[in-house]
């Protein structure tokens, strides 16, 4: 008996055929659609067209592979990491972030460390956070020292996203960094993690840090976390010498107050 193909398979082969269309717009749309279909069985057709002559088609194929999020795409996908066009490399970094896993992390670290284009490195840092993989923690911690402030930003937020004891500790340690920017980003990132540990670390920073930016971010994060234990420290912050700290403290107290009033 011949097995009837499922409707998804019918849709898949019909769309895959369009990857060979003469019109690049159709090819791009077909790639995008295969991504939306999200079927692993669509990967072979997509990776076989990674050498499409049209950049937009290649871009859509890479994005589609990210959408499908299967590690099986990685061996062929990484061929685009040496593409001369930074847009393509950025897209690949994005796709690797969606796919995740140990192999994706390795390739992303390589991009972060060696790519000549700042935008590609930023994308790699951002993607490392998205993988939510423990393997990404050491390279991200390392990136907190990067000269590029955007990379530091994504490294900090990436560590918060990974949300494990190790990554949270790394951020709390970064609150002690000699660099204002690093402390500021660490304080900002910790707002995503509601725990007693982060609460105390942020309160300590609010009370002791000499940089107004860092104190402002600590106040904002305490507001985000929304635990009432932050209120005494925030009330003290209302008499901070810096306008931005006092303003943010008002907001934060309001946020926490309304949260408790509602519950």
């Amino acid at each position, binding site marked *: 008996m011949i097995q009837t193909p*499922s*409707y998804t398979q*019918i*849709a898949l082969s*019909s769309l895959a055929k369009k990857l060979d269309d003469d019109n690049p717009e159709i090819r791009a749309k*077909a790639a995008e659609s295969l991504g939306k*279909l*999200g079927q692993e069985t669509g990967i072979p057709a997509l990776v076989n067209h990674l050498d499409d002559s049209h950049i937009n088609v290649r871009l859509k194929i890479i994005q589609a592979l990210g959408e499908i999020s299967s590690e099986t795409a990685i061996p062929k996908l990484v061929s685009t990491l040496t593409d001369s066009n930074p847009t393509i490399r950025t897209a690949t970094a994005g796709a690797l972030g969606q796919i995740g896993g140990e192999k994706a992390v390795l390739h992303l670290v390589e991009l972060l460390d060696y790519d000549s284009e700042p935008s590609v490195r930023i994308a790699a840092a951002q993607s490392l956070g998205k993988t939510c993989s423990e393997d990404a923690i050491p390279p991200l911690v390392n990136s907190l020292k990067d000269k590029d402030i955007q990379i530091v930003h994504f490294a900090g937020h990436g560590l918060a996203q990974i949300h494990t004891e190790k990554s949270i500790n790394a951020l709390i340690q970064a609150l002690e960094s000699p660099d204002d920017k690093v402390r500021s980003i660490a304080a900002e990132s910790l707002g995503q993690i509601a725990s007693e540990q982060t609460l105390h670390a942020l309160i300590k920073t609010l009370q002791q840090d000499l940089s107004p930016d860092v104190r402002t971010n600590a106040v904002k994060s305490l507001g985000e976390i929304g635990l009432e234990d932050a209120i005494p420290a925030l009330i003290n912050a209302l008499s901070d010498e810096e306008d931005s700290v006092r303003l943010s403290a008002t907001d934060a107290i309001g946020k926490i107050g309304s949260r408790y009033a509602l519950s």
Partner: protein
Amino acid sequence: MTLNSDYLRIVIETFSKRLKHPNAQMRMKAAQCLGNIGNESIIPLLCQALEEESNLDVQFCIMDAIIAINNSTSQSAMSETPQGSKYNIVQPENVQIVEQGDGIIHNYATPQNLTEAAQQIQQLLAQLSQTYPTNTETEKKIFVTQVDEEIKTNSRLRNMLIEGGIELIKILCPPLGIPIEMGRKWLETAKQMGSS
């Protein structure tokens, strides 16, 4: 809320006809509407339209519709018998759905033995159509005559036709692009010769 399966069939037929409308905007709208129905049985119809479509925007709409339908139906509902689920027919094996060139879907509920008979005759007709193609009107007439000759000499074929009656003819003719009226002639021939 879902449509009663009869109405759903009518709606799908109506929209699928519009997929072949000369006006591209009409075809786009038809694809969108079919996508909104969200019934996975529409997918083959849309895939076929995608292959035949030359207009860029319409192709885009068809692809969007395919994705919309696929993503609106859960993976677990994926059917192994697409033809049956098409119209929520209880016994898909007893039904043959024939899609004619005009885009109208005809479905004929047929008893099991009729389906078997149809399959056997279809094999025979397929062999004949290799020698006698059915592309033009003249070729079709020649083909019908040849089948007629076959009916006169093949008693098994006659029996199957007499037993299946007009319902069987309705199954056999559409895929070959032969009007049912022309096929009716086979049945008459078979009845004239009688069963043996």
